[in-house]
């Protein structure tokens, strides 16, 4: 079936550096994609989303890039901080369904 997956299970970065978390998806019919952050002991929190008719969207310190040609999604975090340490999930959805499909997470570790 359709799936969303991540390339790297763990990413370790120095505080202040930029982080890039990648995600591959297989459903070319997805209408939007969402990044979630899950801190230890908490439920996932919405970070940023992007519609399939866009290739870039920026938020506060975060940028999501979408490459539909290779079905690739990435989350860029600028000036990574210790509070960014968490597991990050990408998810995809379609306008015809209320259900989201989640990929496996990438753990981001920020070294002081």
């Amino acid at each position, binding site marked *: 079936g359709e799936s969303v997956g991540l390339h790297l299970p763990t990413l370790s970065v120095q505080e202040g550096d930029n982080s890039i978390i990648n995600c591959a998806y297989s459903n070319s019919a997805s209408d939007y994609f969402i990044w979630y952050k899950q801190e230890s002991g*908490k*439920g*996932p*929190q919405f970070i940023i*989303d992007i519609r399939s008719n866009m290739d870039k969207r920026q938020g506060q310190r975060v940028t999501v890039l979408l490459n539909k040609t290779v079905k690739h999604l990435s989350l860029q975090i600028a000036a990574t901080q210790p509070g960014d340490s968490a597991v990050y*999930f990408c998810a995809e959805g379609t306008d015809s369904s*209320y259900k*989201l*499909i989640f990929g496996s997470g990438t*753990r981001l570790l920020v070294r002081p």
Partner: protein
Amino acid sequence: EADIYQTPRYLVIGTGKKITLECSQTMGHDKMYWYQQDPGMELHLIHYSYGVNSTEKGDLSSESTVSRIRTEHFPLTLESARPSHTSQYLCASSDTQGAREKLFFGSGTQLSVL
């Protein structure tokens, strides 16, 4: 901070026991969901509801059942717990914003069945 609450946070129980995981939201959302998540792994949808008296099974087969008698309440029940049910259970609710669903998650219930 999302107004969605799950109890208990942690539950250790013996095989064969009946359990109910509680989930409540105060945002007035019509749509609610239950996801199952193993550590560091993706979330799997096990149940969802579009509104009162509406429940559907999700993509992952589950022996649990749910009910939606009130908008704010979406409990999940296991009639006879087994060790294979050990996992984290996450409840979520959503509203439609700009043609996409924005999910708000509770903090989860970590279930251990001995």
